[in-house]
């Protein structure tokens, strides 16, 4: 107590006020930079376990994205088929070639019909003989079992129900025995595509949840490993936000790395498939080529990975970090 008089006055400048908004913002950015760099260094310093995490996330993301790219390609192919609908008119036995030709010309003049083609029964039989390999059997037949056939191609502007109505109308023509709309396979393809998309979506959803859980667990382990450090930081005045930040960045780096790896995996798979597919396209005299992810697709994948990483880390951090309090 005697010494009190000798104590120098506490200088106010010893503890400068640093509460300006600009200063707080700068400090906040500085800690973000430090946390980001520090987390990245930690991720890179353990290449073994980090690579494993990246691979797991990369594969989990590459699977649905790869399937989706495949579906996109398939639908691009099927979209390329203009006016796939075709109505086959099987004529009555009594309708001769003249009548059939007249009908063909008549129908060709209709507004809703793009083209018509008359296939005489003899021609049909020849074609069938050549294609089927049943030449011997057919030679033994007394008479041609095939009817005259008129192929009607509706205009592409017609909607599906209109095409169906057209088929019904054409069947009413007295010379027509039966009108068959050859569209079922396309419907089937479209239904199949829709189903596939939903399956991909469901699988993708499950894999995303899996990625979140894996990331959450990885971050939980990171938190466990640094428990002492967290306690010390809290003891010297670190806020929850301060403690949280490096772990969120760890999640971000895992996610971004996983997303990048997924983009690489998908691109590699496409590259692997490119040659056989262009060979196949050549066989079909098609100019088809595989369309890949593109730069935007790859970027989106990286961003998606990053967001998932952040979300997974957030899950782990909000559950585990608050429970670590200095004792």
């Amino acid at each position, binding site marked *: 107590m005697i010494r009190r008089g000798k104590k120098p006055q506490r200088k106010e400048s010893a503890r400068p006020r640093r509460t300006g908004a600009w200063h707080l913002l700068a400090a906040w950015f*500085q*800690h973000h930079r430090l946390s980001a760099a520090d987390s990245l260094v930690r991720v890179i310093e353990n290449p073994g376990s980090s690579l494993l995490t990246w691979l797991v996330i990369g594969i989990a993301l590459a699977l649905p994205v790869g399937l989706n790219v495949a579906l996109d390609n398939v639908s691009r192919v099927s979209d390329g088929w203009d006016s796939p609908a075709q109505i086959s008119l099987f004529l009555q036995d009594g309708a001769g070639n003249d009548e059939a030709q007249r009908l063909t010309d008549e129908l060709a003049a209709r507004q809703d019909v793009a083209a018509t083609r008359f296939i005489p029964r003899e021609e049909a039989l020849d074609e069938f003989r050549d294609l089927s390999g049943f030449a011997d059997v057919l030679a033994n037949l007394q008479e041609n079992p095939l009817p005259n056939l008129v192929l009607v191609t509706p205009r592409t502007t017609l909607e599906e129900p209109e095409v169906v109505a057209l088929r019904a109308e054409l069947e009413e023509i007295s010379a027509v025995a039966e009108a068959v709309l050859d569209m079922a396979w396309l419907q089937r393809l479209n239904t199949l595509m829709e189903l596939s998309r939903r399956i991909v979506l469901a699988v993708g959803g499950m894999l995303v949840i899996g990625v979140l859980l894996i990331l959450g667990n990885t971050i939980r382990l990171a938190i466990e490993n640094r428990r002492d450090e967290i306690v010390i930081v809290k003891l010297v005045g670190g*806020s929850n936000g*301060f403690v949280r930040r490096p772990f969120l960045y760890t999640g971000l780096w895992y996610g971004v790395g996983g997303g990048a790896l997924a983009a690489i995996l998908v691109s590699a798979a496409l590259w692997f498939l490119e040659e056989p597919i262009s060979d196949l396209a050549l066989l079909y005299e098609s100019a088809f080529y595989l369309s890949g992810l593109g730069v935007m697709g790859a970027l989106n994948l990286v961003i998606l990975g990053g967001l998932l990483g952040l979300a997974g880390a957030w899950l782990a951090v909000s559950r585990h970090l608050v429970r670590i309090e200095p004792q």
Partner: protein
Amino acid sequence: MITFDRVSKRYEEGRDALREVSLHIGSEDFVFLTGHSGAGKSTMLRLIMLMDRPTRGQVIVNGQDLSTVRARGIPRLRRNIGVVFQNHRLLFDRTVFDNVALPLVIAGYEHREIGRRVRAALDKVGLLHREWAMPKALSGGEQQRVGIARAVVGKPRILLADEPTGNLDPALSAEIMNLFEQFNQVGVTVLIASHDLALISRLHHRIITLQQGHLVSGGAG
């Protein structure tokens, strides 16, 4: 600077760690807190830095009633209190420099300012030359001095120490106490919990004595 008003603390296991303790520690005081093991010394320090809350009574630190401080406000309170622990509590995977810099990084100081202040604090405890060493490479006394540098680097108003010389020999202990006195000289309120009566009775500062949670002497400043 620190006021306890009829403070009781009962842990969940049923032991009363503090019973109706009232005391006042003025600004720029240097106070020892003593008593047998289990008397409640650490509990008092824990209440001051809100590592725990009292069961009854009021604790006021730096004019602030701690019962009004919510969880979000705890970090801010702790930034104004420097703490030294018996087992140092250093980050063993960081350099001495990084350990001491931690409170400044948390408070958001600029890079250059951090370097300047950390070196000043290390110079004060005589460890400037070990700036880039890892704590593992230091002796017990040196580690404790790193802990002290970390506690004072942010220029807190209050410095708490829980058995800071617990593991040190008498010569080193006297040296550490001398450091605390130097900080007190420049206006820091110092509260040191220690059961080393031989050491603290030689230093002629106010001594608060606890016995099984009761304050037995030294309560009135």
